[in-house]
């Protein structure tokens, strides 16, 4: 089971933005590359502020990057 219900599209967005590397994204938002990997893999939920910073890098609204999976939608 994943430790968080927050899913994200960071990987797709990185590729859509000139194949931005995890290291480049990490540097732009002040995180380590390993933390970006953990977020992409759903092993870590960033703070709201960090989530906004990531969305800002891709110039998209927050909900275009992160999505909360409704627990009731589980089957």
């Amino acid at each position, binding site marked *: 089971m994943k*430790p*968080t219900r927050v899913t994200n599209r960071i990987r797709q967005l990185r590729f859509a933005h000139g194949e931005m590397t995890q290291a480049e994204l990490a540097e732009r938002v002040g*995180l*380590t590359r*390993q*933390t970006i990997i*953990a977020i992409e*893999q759903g*092993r*870590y939920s960033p703070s709201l502020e960090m989530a906004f910073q990531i969305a800002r890098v891709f110039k998209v609204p927050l909900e275009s990057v992160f999505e909360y999976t409704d627990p009731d939608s589980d089957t």
Partner: protein
Amino acid sequence: MSKTFDITKEMTLEERLIWVSAGVLLGSAGVYWGVILGRARYIPITEVPYGWAMFWSLGAVVLGSLAVAVATVILAPREADQKDQRDREVGRHGDAAGYNVLALGCLGVLALTVAGAEPFWVAHSLYLCCVVAGLWSAVTKIIAYRRGFSP
């Protein structure tokens, strides 16, 4: 479980320091128990002089961890400055887990003291609490790094 403790996996500096601290703690405790049990071959274990050995064992953990942290800053100053939000949250999470173990252990030591146990057993119960709490904290942090963490 094996993936969780795979040390060949890429790690942040903070995670590497946790592995080193846990190793220093285990090594120090191992040497300490080796010395005490070695002395206990000739005299009853409760009569073994342990004060200085315990002092040096705990001192080695503090100084060893400090030396590694200082060496990291000197050898890799850029990496040493990269502690991020996840590192801080994982650190707090692991420290809290360690404090819980320590608090529980201290209650046991208190019970031993009230029951009139010999100073040797009281001191070693406390020593064991410190070692177990340190290891528990380190393992909690490593699991948080490897398997995921939701603050």
